[in-house]
């Protein structure tokens, strides 16, 4: 074991992250700058999520880490190992048992509950980046509630392609005010952010920003009134392993062969258990 303190970060580093977290919760969807510390994993590999998790975690927490919905993915394993090595907390793959879930690109299929915290790893915290790269301009646009450039993008895509071309990181409006980037989750997960009983925290280490969605907060995708928000669907597809339908799937291609499996591996495991019991 190390001679580093509990949860790696020094006390003042945590206080700085905690300050930003409290502001983020009080300002749903607003991106709060913070002094992001260098972590021993590379920038872009989840250092924002990691800093949040390490700043909120307690000895009694039960941790779940997923990447693309999978507990066993190498990056998830690596991050989980690092967190447990500096905290000795219990880990689980069961969504229902976890008190902190750090995730990359997915929200677990299993419905979240109160007293759970979902920590997202975020590559691009600023929703306006694609339409306005300048930070000062972005701040002004948020202050003015001026999301017209996003609407133009949406309009252009809709008129050319019938729908937005944004496949993930779909812009959402939080609490009818700030528009934010939900992190690269699929559109499938967007409605599941809305009015969620769990606290959702977002960390972008490289960009030195964090933001939050408090529990029971409205989260709506940006869309025209006369258009339906279409999530990914997999018509006729069921998981080859557990038989689930209407969830988000991983596609596996081996040559010309295409197969589908639940992207949320724990959800899949649970279905298997149920199948076995039946």
């Amino acid at each position, binding site marked *: 074991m190390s001679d580093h303190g509990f949860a790696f970060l020094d006390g003042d580093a945590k206080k700085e992250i905690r300050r930003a977290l409290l502001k983020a919760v009080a300002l749903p969807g607003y991106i709060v700058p913070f002094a992001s510390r260098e972590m021993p994993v590379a920038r872009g590999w989840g250092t924002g999520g990691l800093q949040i998790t390490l700043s909120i975690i307690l000895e009694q927490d039960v941790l779940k880490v997923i990447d693309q919905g999978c507990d066993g993915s*190498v990056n998830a394993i690596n991050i989980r190992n*690092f967190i447990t*090595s500096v905290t000795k907390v219990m880990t689980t793959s069961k969504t229902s048992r976890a008190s902190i879930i750090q995730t990359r690109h997915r929200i677990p299929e299993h419905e979240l509950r109160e007293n759970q915290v979902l920590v997202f790893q975020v590559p691009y915290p600023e929703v306006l980046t694609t*339409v306005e790269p300048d930070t000062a301009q972005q701040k002004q646009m948020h202050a003015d509630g001026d999301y017209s450039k996003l609407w*133009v993008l949406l309009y252009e895509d809709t008129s050319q392609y019938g729908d937005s071309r944004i496949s993930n990181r779909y812009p959402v409006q939080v609490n009818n005010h700030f528009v934010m980037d939900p992190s690269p989750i699929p559109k499938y997960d967007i409605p599941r952010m809305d009015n969620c009983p769990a606290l959702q925290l977002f960390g972008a280490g490289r960009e030195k920003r964090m933001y939050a969605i408090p529990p029971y907060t409205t989260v709506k995708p940006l869309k025209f009134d006369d258009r339906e928000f279409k999530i990914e669907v997999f018509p006729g597809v069921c998981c080859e392993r557990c038989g689930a339908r209407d969830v988000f799937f991983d596609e596996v291609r081996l040559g010309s062969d295409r197969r589908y499996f639940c992207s949320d591996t724990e959800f899949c495991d649970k279905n298997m258990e149920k199948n076995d019991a039946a």
Partner: protein
Amino acid sequence: MSYVAIKGGSDAIQSSIRFFQNSLRQGQVIGDEELQKGLIFSCDRIMGEGALYSETLAAEALRRTGGDLLEAAFYLRAHRSTCKRIGEATQLSGSSMRILRRISSAFKDIEGGQILGPSCDYVIRLFRGLVEEDEGTSLSSGDPVGAGVPSAVDSLRQRDQIVLLENKEEQPFDVSRSFPLPPYPRSALMQVMSRGETGAMLAFAYTSMRGYGDVHPTIGDLRIGYMSVEFIHPFTGNKVKVGDIRVTTCEAIGSFNRDPRDGKLRLATGFGFCLGFNETKAISMSILDMAMHHSGYSVGGMDIAANPEIIIHHVDGIESMGFTNHFKLPHYVTFQADLQVLLKAKEQSDE
């Protein structure tokens, strides 16, 4: 007076070189093997940016430069000028690589598998041990990987989901024999980038990832491994294997757009290739390729990385280093002229 100045200068130069070499003296005892094997990523950067594959020369360059990678790459570039170019090796292609590492971020499982290979991606960067290592983990055996693994992007290609850009060139351009004029042939840009400086490529690619441009790549297929260099035996006319070289390739997948050929929607891809193991560079190159060869998807934006004029002139480290350092040359004359202009202007404006 001028005689003295020249003599003084030449003595000083000699002494300076001697001083430089003396200060690196301890490095001269480091053997080729230690440098080639132990500092493999330094050697690979040098060979890639020097655009010449020679492990012996890379090691020698490292010793001579005290590990200054750009300066070392410069040695290799310069050495190229002394060698006769005998011809071309037979065509290298990614699928013929004997794979050490191959990953795809696009699909969970792919034909040939996700092979992590030797990688520092999951190293916890701490001097003090943190994560407890599993004791005595023996290497589990698996199916061997070898060569002939198709790119993970090929399955999308087979489904006609990838834009195939028109190949407008009969012969690839060679920027080391003549430099192209705009519009720059694709092969010239690709060659300049595979010789490009890792840091410059990374910085330009990063602008595109971060908002100045709109490339949000998915790594379709990234691999490192060995490729065979083959040549034709002059007396039998048959292919002969000359040796194996280390290379890195990357295929990135971007957003979809209308394919200019038939107006159908397909995904854009970009390609990166470099000598040696250098994933950062190959990924950066694939992103720059995509940014330059597929028109932007964003509204507005200042696409630095999508401008071939910017990329072709600014990623070569040997050139940018040389020019940056040239400012150390005397500029007494031009600066004196600057001062004169300043004085004149002051007379006018400070009245």
